[in-house]
């Protein structure tokens, strides 16, 4: 990493010498199209290792929502070498299980049809199952038991852990799926062994059983939180056509019914090496890493066809949408606007706009919280996704009776920004914070690794070094332009969350009736 002088600014009497941080990345591309990004850094004897597949829930279609996330779980279930005592027998059992599952699905389809025409109340109730259906289920359970005898539980994780791998995890988002771990500096080859093995020889073991875990994950993250399901429906209301409308964890019906064929097709398309980037940050020699990458990763075959382009894009919203919800939560208003993708030229002014609204010295704190006393909390920010974007304003009202006033107050603040340019001091403050933030963001090696994965998933890693200049170049006119462009009545979706037991105060509830 080098420090270079970006700008010398003399402003409002304060002299700002602004050094910006450039991340020096050594890039290596394998013949199969996989990209390798290397950032050697001195420090503790560890390497932060990760890779990203350019696939998320946005690449799904109705019927298989949640497959990207289910996949993330399957990637820890082992390979031909790891996770089983007898791979031949294991594969045999897996084929039998799939066959049984297909027959069970036929039985389920009969029940769903009876349900559709109103002959039965509950297509999942055991009472409604045919004798054959019950036999198939029993056989399925039985085979699972046989298979579990062959399993070497969590062997993939065990090997990393026993070698000092730490912080092993993965995440799936709308746009990407990332896998990462920190390994001691002498264990780089282990990382290449393990990651190339699960890409070259994966076995989606426990393909059906793992859905119990995913179900618990949904209950944990969504169903059993006071606003989880309402938030999910707010997303689904905001996005009309876009695949961003469904939750990353998927709709339950889909998750229950994804087949192995669908999963394999998904893997072949999106986990091909030409759709992956590997990132290493830490204590290693780049030459050694490249030699190991060639040795272990070049055996992966380029995908037969490139991942298909995203087809279903969001359509233009023509009228305001509103949702009024009652939940065990504070009185909250959220107002969400369609904006632009992460890489769009409007993203930097939208990011600056968010900073102007937020924080102890931001506009919302001064106006809505302190002066007008409408809110106890208020903020806003852009979320640039790969193919689209959104900007959300959120306010928590002091009193639920003031929720609509707070909504109006938020609009008023945005209208002011249309009328008057933000001040030079406001703008410079944001830019100063961004430059300091640049350094702070790079302090953590694993943090830098994750950032590079994200930049790769949304575009290319080089953007990490362009970000600073893009923010520094934002003008007051730019900010005004994006506010005028996006913050319109017909472009917004509004969610009002009232406490469950809320009864609106009336000035005189009796005597109004004439």
């Amino acid at each position: 990493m080098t420090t270079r002088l970006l700008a010398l600014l003399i402003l409002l009497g304060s002299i700002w010498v602004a050094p910006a941080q450039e991340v020096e990345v050594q890039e290596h591309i394998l013949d199969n199209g996989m990209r390798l990004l290397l950032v050697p850094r001195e420090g503790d004897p560890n390497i932060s290792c990760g890779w990203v597949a350019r696939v998320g829930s946005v690449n799904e279609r109705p019927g298989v929502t949640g497959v990207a996330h289910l996949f993330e779980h399957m990637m820890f279930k082992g390979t031909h070498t790891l996770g089983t005592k007898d791979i031949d027998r294991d594969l045999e059992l897996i084929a039998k299980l799939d066959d049984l599952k297909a027959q069970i699905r036929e039985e389920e389809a009969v029940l769903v049809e009876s349900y559709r025409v109103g002959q039965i109340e509950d297509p999942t109730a055991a009472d409604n199952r045919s004798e054959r259906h019950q036999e198939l289920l029993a056989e399925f359970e039985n085979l699972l038991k046989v298979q579990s005898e062959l399993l070497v539980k969590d062997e993939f994780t065990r090997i990393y852990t026993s070698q000092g791998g730490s912080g092993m995890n993965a995440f799936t988002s709308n746009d990407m799926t990332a896998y990462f771990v920190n390994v001691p500096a002498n264990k780089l080859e282990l990382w290449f062994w393990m990651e190339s093995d699960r890409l070259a020889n994966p076995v989606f073991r426990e393909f059906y059983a793992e859905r119990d875990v995913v179900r618990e994950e949904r209950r944990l993250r969504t169903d059993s939180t006071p606003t989880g399901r309402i938030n999910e429906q707010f997303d689904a209301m905001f996005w009309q056509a876009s695949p961003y409308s469904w939750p990353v964890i998927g709709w339950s019906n889909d998750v229950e019914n994804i087949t192995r064929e669908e999963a394999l097709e998904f893997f072949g398309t999106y986990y091909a090496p030409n759709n992956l980037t590997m990132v290493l940050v830490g204590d290693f020699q780049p030459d050694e890493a490249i030699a190991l990458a060639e040795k272990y990763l070049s055996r992966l075959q380029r995908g037969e066809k490139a991942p298909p382009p995203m087809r279903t894009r969001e359509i233009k919203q023509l009228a305001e949408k509103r949702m009024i919800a009652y939940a065990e939560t504070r009185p909250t208003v959220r107002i969400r606007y369609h904006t632009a993708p992460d890489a769009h030229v409007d993203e930097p002014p939208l990011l600056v706009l968010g900073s102007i609204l937020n924080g102890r010295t931001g506009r919302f704190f001064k106006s809505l919280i302190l002066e007008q006393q409408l809110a106890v909390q208020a903020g806003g920010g852009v979320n640039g996704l790969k193919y689209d974007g959104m900007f959300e304003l959120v306010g928590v009202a002091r009193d639920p009776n003031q929720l609509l006033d707070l909504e109006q107050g938020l609009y008023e603040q945005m209208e002011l920004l249309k009328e008057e340019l933000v001040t030079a001091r406001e703008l410079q403050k944001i830019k100063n914070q961004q430059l300091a933030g640049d350094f702070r963001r790079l302090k953590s090696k694993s943090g830098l690794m994750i950032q590079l994965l994200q930049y790769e998933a949304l575009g290319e890693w080089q953007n990490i070094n362009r970000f600073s200049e893009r923010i520094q170049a934002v003008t007051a006119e730019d900010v005004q332009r994006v506010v005028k462009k996006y913050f319109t009545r017909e472009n917004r979706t509004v969610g009002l969350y009232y406490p469950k037991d809320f009864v609106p105060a009336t000035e005189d509830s009796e005597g109004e009736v004439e």
Partner: protein
Amino acid sequence: MRRRDWMTAAAGGALALPQLASAQIPAHPSLLEFSPIEFQPPEASQYRRELPGGAVAYLVEDHQFPLVDVSVTIRTGGYLVPDEDIDVASFTGSQMRAGGTQSISFTDFDEEAAFLATQIGCSVGRTSSSASVGCLKQNLDRSLEMFFDMLMHPGFDAQQLELSVARTLQGLERRNDSTRSIVNREYARLMRGNHFTTRQSTEDTVGRVTAERMAAFHAQNYSPSRFIFSVSGDFDTDEMFDKLSAYLTSSDWPELGAAPAIPAPTHHPRPGVYMVDKVDENLNQAQVRIGHLGIARSNPDHIAASVMNYILGGGSFVSRIMSRVRSDEGLAYSASSSITPGTYYPGLFSAAFQSENGRCAQAATIVLEEMQRIREEKVSDEELELSHNYNIEIFPRFFATAGQVAGTFAADEYTGREEGYWQNYRDRIAAVSADDIQRVAQTYLKPEQAVILAVGATDAVKAGNPDEPDYSFQSLNDDNEIEMIPLPDPLTMKYPEG
């Protein structure tokens, strides 16, 4: 790039140059060979300086980025105040930061800090308090000036206090919304009874917060003799020492005696099954905690106990509890146990998971079975080796950054950890045998004394899973009554009778 000053390790370059690409890929990762890493932990004395007024600092230079981070741990906390003043203590921390100083309005203070991109924080905790400033090197002097002005002459602004009170009261009203917040609160009450760690804010305790009371708390608790600094980043140690010293010699600091000792709880948890009913038609998952009293850090067995717990439930996917509850049975997304050595008095052993209502009893049964099994059977060689390897291999990560080095040593001094603790830490881990693990499991795990708490839709939790009728909370409790804990009024924390 300059070498990081705190790195004493001869690390890196340890990897032997791999074979050419044509070389065979080993059939199994166990065939890979790794050269050892030499890593010696840093020594506290290398960074320790005594400052004027009785303050201490750990100064760790790191010139990689032009940033400086200063934080100070202050010997004070909520444990010092009577029950009705818990919010006076906690508000003092946040209002010191929010209210500007006696000579600078909060508007100007915040505006300047934001413009300089200087981050300033301040909080009062239960047994320690802290304040911090992080800034670009070029703004260090002004940032320190503002920071010490806040520490010495806080403003306690009325408007900021009013806002914070409104926010807090709104938060109190919502304290029974999520099962997670309920389970944490009620579990602590069951384990610690009436103790400073379980006191709860109410509208009365919040109502007692005034600028005068906060100023009094500040005057009685903030002085160099109570300060331990940890400083990391791009500075010169001698220069930093001089800068800090200049502020600490001010005559504005009060003379303070030593902070009183931290009171240990006297409560003995009553074993049994407890439930809190959360009425919500959508709630399909319950939170469960299982635990009993644990051990103190002063107990030499705490290392063996932590290795034991790693195998039992601390090691995530490689632990027995996670493996059975999640991987085998699919009963929970996460399931774990912890045996946190208490710093001042015995800590707790606790297991935690969240499962679909009807399946909680099965998961709870598994946790108790595993607690029993690790007492009865020796752990396998493989488990022991894995636990040793992991806990030894990750050791360098405790000291991965200058901030961690300074922070660890400052915390050690604050809590009075014995000198040289880290120097032979790995040897002590490696010395833990399978016999030791069984011995500490038998001594410190008490499944028959467990407090079991479930929070959720309790009718469904009690009903269990019709497909697995053998599991029930009643049977975990020798068919004794399950004790129902009612939800308290969120603003007064009064629990309904009966």
